[in-house]
């Protein structure tokens, strides 16, 4: 009975260690930024690159600067830009997924105030792995000028 108990405890301890490791290493977020808004503008976008260790998906995002946060997808066909809300964004294992002005992005809506250039915007991301386990990742995104060009789109082959 005693030994059973200790095995149980050991297993519990191991799984806790496992969870801690997962939380810290499962999804990496880099180059997170928010586009600055002008006074009175009710919404703006947030962009970043996510990379998960295992097949996961980005479920939702929250931020204290916006009452509503949605994940949107932009697509372009025949020079018509189409926009729509999506339920989640797939994060295939080991593949960097870019949320940029040319595809998926996070919409910060009903802003509580103007988001000024240089301000740090807290973002709380909820990511779910294939087993259905969710993790919460808190980051701070830097606010860049309204007129920031999207560099990921730049075609360097055309530059001299």
């Amino acid at each position, binding site marked *: 009975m005693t030994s059973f108990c200790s095995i149980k405890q050991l297993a519990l301890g191991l799984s806790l260690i496992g969870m801690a490791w997962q939380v810290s290493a499962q999804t990496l977020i880099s180059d997170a930024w928010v586009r600055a808004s002008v006074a009175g*503008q009710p919404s703006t*976008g947030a962009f970043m690159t996510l990379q998960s260790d295992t097949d996961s998906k980005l479920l939702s995002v929250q931020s204290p600067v916006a009452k509503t946060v949605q994940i*949107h997808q932009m697509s372009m066909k025949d020079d018509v830009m189409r926009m729509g809300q999506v339920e989640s964004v797939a994060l295939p294992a080991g593949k960097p997924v870019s949320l940029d002005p040319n595809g998926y992005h996070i919409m910060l809506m009903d802003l509580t105030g103007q988001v000024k250039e240089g301000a740090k915007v807290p973002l709380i991301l909820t990511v779910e792995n294939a087993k259905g386990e969710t993790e919460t990742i808190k980051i701070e995104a830097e606010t860049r000028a*309204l007129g920031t060009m999207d560099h990921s*789109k730049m075609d360097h082959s055309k530059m001299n």
Partner: protein
Amino acid sequence: MLFSMSTLYTRRTVLRGMSLLSLGLLAGCDDSSKLSFKYGKDLSDKIMGRNFKLKDAQGETRMLGSYRGLMPMIFFGFTQCPAVCPTTLARAAQAKKLMGRDGDRLQVIFITLDPERDTSEMLDAYVKAFDPSFEALYGTLEETAATAKEFGVFFEKVPSGSTYTLSHTATSYVFDSRGNLRLGLSASLTAQECAEDLLTVMEVC
């Protein structure tokens, strides 16, 4: 009386002579029905966007004729657009700089497709954040729809939770300094590519 008649006659002749001269100078202007652009689409044979009547930030009525002598570049969008609108306006600001002194004649005009939410004050601050020379125009819902139709611009509201977003045409429309539609620039082009084609428009008129 006779004297003043002849003066009038002389003046008329001079005026006629001057208008002939200016026609000669601007021969390539409205006569050429085709232009060759490296990146954009030649719209010289399209009759579009001639009759819009909207308001600027000061509430003044603006029409195509209000920009005579300038090269208007018109883009439709909305300020809650996180992607293509700011990218296109930033590209326009960059193209204007790349054009050097010729860029002074480029008048970027942003027409909102979301007049219900884009107030004139906010619209003005928005476009001027890209370049202080940029102008924003707005109309009623009906005027907005009529203007979009005139340009062949598609737009529709897309419900998004408790609110909505918009899908819309992302082309920039360029007129020459005499108000003839010339060029359509797709959202996929770079600032450098746009600047080159804009200079082609300027060479003609």
